[in-house]
């Protein structure tokens, strides 16, 4: 079988030649998935040169249609060889058949979202196109900082606090879910919370993050020893995608873009991104075990307490990223952030939880439905506190992303600090 794809306006036409049977169905599915990944959500199949269509082929066509609908895309077959039309009609699947190539559907901005004509922002990072949408121009995020425990002091009972993390809260820090403080003492790990879902990496030897989801009456709660929690509406949605195949955006560039878009010195952001590579660390041993005599912050003892990713991890996966950043070291938020080596003067704190890849619809998308969909389909693969590895020569660099959606807003200067 031969598969060729060409773009016709906004529509991607995939031409198949030969037999579409069990042996070749996966190849077609893979090709279409790659197109969706690249952001093409309107796909048509040119089946005029198809010689044979088996049930396995039909199944794949239905699967492609479902996947495209999931990202608000369209899929149809046309033109098609007469036997293809007949086969599909007999199977009651004529919905798949198109009579003519439909006109390209322009990406419809959702209600409330209006693209910002900000040429400077669009061109800011070479290789990546940024597409800012205004959601609620004056919205601000209120941040609460729980600064009970500071690394790497021994953990005291009053360091721990239980906080609810329901919608629309989001946040990051160190914590664990459990009955009471003593129960979680041995499992405290890095966490990410957004849109009613909380994921954390227990530090008791587990290699997969655990997670809680908000249901009708269940509100996720976490015992935390250190956390930054944001609450409020996002002012902007920043969509970004590669200008050419192979392009990606570094985390620090994304920070810069967020600060420009929100026109603020301090901002909070929640992103759903396709990962090019993540660099980070995670707690390997619970801070609950630190004794007075320990020196966890020193090498080599640090090895016991933190695990470093060692290479750029989780390429081509999807990540839910929460970050707080500010440019002004006088801002109250700055005390809870660490410097970003690539951008002198910039301070940030970011955690990311990783999932298998799942395409995101184009245009303006809703944070809560998108995050819910991510957690619904898959269990998380990993969780990292993102680090920029700026060691000369051997450094892994910073985390970078291929495309994604970033909800962001300025942070209210009044920071509530709970110690």
């Amino acid at each position, binding site marked *: 079988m031969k598969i060729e794809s060409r773009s016709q306006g906004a529509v991607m036409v995939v031409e198949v030649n030969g037999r579409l049977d069990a042996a070749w169905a996966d190849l077609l599915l893979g090709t279409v998935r790659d197109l969706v990944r690249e952001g093409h959500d309107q796909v048509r199949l040119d089946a005029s040169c198809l010689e044979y269509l088996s049930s396995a082929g039909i199944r794949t066509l239905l699967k492609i249609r479902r996947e495209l609908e999931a990202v608000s895309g369209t899929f149809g077959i046309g033109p098609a060889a007469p036997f293809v039309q007949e086969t599909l009609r007999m199977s009651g699947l004529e919905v798949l058949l198109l009579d003519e190539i439909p006109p390209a559907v322009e990406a419809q901005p959702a209600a409330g979202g209006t693209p910002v004509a900000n040429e400077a922002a669009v061109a800011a990072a070479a290789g990546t196109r940024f597409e800012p949408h205004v959601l609620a121009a004056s919205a601000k995020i209120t941040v609460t900082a729980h600064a009970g425990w500071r690394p790497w002091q021994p953990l005291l009972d009053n360091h721990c606090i239980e906080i609810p993390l329901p919608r629309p809260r989001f946040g990051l820090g160190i914590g664990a879910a459990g009955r009471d403080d003593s129960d979680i003492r041995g499992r405290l790990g890095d966490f990410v919370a957004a849109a009613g879902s909380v994921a954390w990496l227990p530090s008791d030897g587990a*290699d997969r993050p655990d997670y809680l989801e908000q249901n009708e009456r269940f509100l996720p709660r976490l015992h935390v020893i250190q956390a930054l929690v944001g609450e409020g509406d996002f002012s902007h949605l920043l969509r970004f995608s590669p200008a050419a195949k192979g392009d990606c955006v570094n985390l620090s560039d994304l920070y810069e873009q967020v600060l420009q878009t929100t026109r603020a010195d301090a901002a909070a952001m929640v992103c759903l991104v396709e990962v090019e590579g993540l660099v980070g660390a995670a707690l390997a041993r619970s801070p609950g075990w630190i004794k007075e005599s320990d020196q966890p912050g020193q090498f080599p003892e640090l*090895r016991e307490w933190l695990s*470093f990713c060692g290479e750029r991890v989780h390429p081509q996966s999807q990540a839910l990223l929460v970050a707080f950043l500010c440019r002004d070291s006088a801002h109250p938020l700055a005390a809870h952030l*660490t410097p970003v080596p690539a951008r002198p003067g910039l301070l940030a704190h970011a955690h990311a939880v990783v999932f298998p890849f799942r395409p995101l619809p184009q245009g303006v998308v809703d944070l809560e439905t998108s995050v819910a969909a991510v957690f619904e389909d898959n269990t998380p693969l990993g969780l990292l506190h993102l*680090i920029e590895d700026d*060691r000369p020569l051997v450094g892994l660099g910073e985390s970078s992303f291929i495309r994604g959606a970033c909800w962001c807003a300025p942070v209210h200067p009044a920071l509530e600090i709970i110690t």
Partner: protein
Amino acid sequence: MLDLRQIRKTFFPDTPNEVQALCGIDLLIPEGTFAAIIGTNGSGKSTLLNAVAGAFELDQGGIHIDGREITTWPEYRRAGLIGRVFQNPFAGTAADMTIAENIALAMRRGCRRGFGLALHRTARAEIAERVRTLNLGLENRLDNPIGTLSGGQRQALTLLMATWRRPRLLLLDEHTAALDPKSAAQVAELTLTLIRQEKLTALMVTHSMQQAVQLPERIIMMHKGRVVRQYEGQEKDRVRAPDLLAAFDQVRRREQLDPAVAALLAKQYG
């Protein structure tokens, strides 16, 4: 009981090919314990076994079996205490000699070999009887050259030979790795039976996480010439193959955390 104290070995020292194969290994295998060594290629697990067997001299450290120091004993002398099965089924038997003759050799392991006939009548009867317990039908082929047998059969016989006179320590060097899956399972089962029956102290190198989880009482994880983790008791009973793989991953990641990374993390973490 096997007691290893600070064992060190560097191959090709002071050359570009220098390999630090064993970097100060301390290990205590109590009497009657069956332990498995797992590790990546080049982690030094086979080297450790060879060091115990006496295939080369150590740079440093001591090897004690049942309280006797054998560090300076040559390989053949250690064989009096140690039974061995190799990865290659051809390595453990003399191919051109008969099954009975091979076993006759093993019957005198650790004893003086005199000018008595190797295969007198009582020896033959004993051989036939114990080979019958293998249930491989080999008792009728005692006078066939051992080279005519399959890898699995040879490995079963090597195992029988290694345990014929109760060894103080049994060394198994990936002894099922070169066999087809069915023979490997049979040999693994035989290994377990023999070790349990005789309550042997045994050290097995294996590539198979499955085997490491199922057979022994203790798992020793090696990486770059060091013992990085041990599972025993309840922890060993709970552990599954994916956990071992995850632990390896952790070890590898831990290794990445050098002082430079530590400085990085100190600045950027928390």
